């Protein structure tokens, strides 16, 4: 062990070497009550009628490792990242317009399931395991939706009726 009894320290180094301090109590329980209201994002109906151009952007398999990296990594951060990536794919289609009632019913049902999960996540007081479980459910639903849409787009691009594609795939 080095003898520091005769060493002198530059003030910058000495101050930077001080340890970080932790608050007496977490401020999170109070802060959690002041989170701004979540924006209402009803993107699924628009996602359902994604333009064929989307096929040029999204690879045929939306479950491919190129889009969702490291699917075996089940850490909360990783699952949240997957959720965000999938969500962005759906949001990317928001400029489209829907004209199919059946598709909208399905999309709304999926969206409601997402909102239920979000409400549970917002409720707070969840254990890390519970949070992870909910985020995994969220990813699962988003994967279901993106898989459905890409499949339908593909079938439409082949000239098959949209309604038939819906019945077959859902």
């Amino acid at each position, binding site marked *: 062990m080095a003898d520091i009894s005769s*060493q002198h320290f530059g003030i910058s180094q000495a*101050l930077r070497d001080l340890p970080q301090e932790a*608050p007496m109590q977490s401020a999170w329980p109070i802060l959690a009550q002041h989170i*701004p209201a979540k924006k209402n994002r009803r993107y699924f109906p628009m996602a359902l009628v994604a333009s064929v151009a989307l096929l040029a952007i999204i690879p045929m398999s939306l479950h491919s490792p190129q889009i969702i990296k490291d699917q075996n990594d089940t850490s909360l951060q990783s699952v*949240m990242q997957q959720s965000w990536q999938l969500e962005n794919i759906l949001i990317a289609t928001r400029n489209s317009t829907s004209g199919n009632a059946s598709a909208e019913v399905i999309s709304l049902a999926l969206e409601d399931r997402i909102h239920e999960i979000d409400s549970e996540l917002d409720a707070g007081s969840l254990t890390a395991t519970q949070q992870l479980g909910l985020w995994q459910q969220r990813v699962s639903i988003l994967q279901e939706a993106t898989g459905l849409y890409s499949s339908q787009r593909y079938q439409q691009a082949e000239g098959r009726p949209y309604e038939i594609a819906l019945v077959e795939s859902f």
Partner: protein
Amino acid sequence: MTSPFAIEVPSSLLTRARNGEAAAFEQLYRWFERPVYTLALRLCGQREEAQDILQETMLKLFGKISEFRGDSPFWAWLRQIAVNESLMRIRKRHPGNEIDLDEESDFLEADILLPPQAADTQLLISAMNQLSETTRSVLWLYHVEGYTHDEIAGLMDKTISFSKSQCARGAKKLRELLNTEHYNIKQEVLSHG
């Protein structure tokens, strides 16, 4: 020089926070809880106040995150909120001008060497807490957070000379305090021996 705040935040996390996701806000809180609290504690010197500053800073983060444009790193933006909140409280506690008027005193060597007892965390913190809040704040912002004298002068509505002077005299005072504290402790040990 790397600030304890220098944590790279993924843009995806910021997007989710802007969309109001509670989990994203919680993640940001967890990452920046200690840097914000430590900065507030070093500047103000009181744990209760540092706790209040932590809470206020995070509330402002929640309310203003939609205004963050990404012109600077997120951590620098958040740090600025914490610094402003801390300095505002110091100013409130000392209405008018609690700051030393002797702005133009001769500048001593800025990065003065501290004695070996500076390696003792408790001694150094104790000595820091004996400095005035303003001097302590200037020292911390300059030496730890890497603010320039120009930036500190702007934050405190003072001159660059003022910042340099506070830095130099604060360092000198810190050295004296460390020697004194060390002497006092040795005397105490001897008297109990």
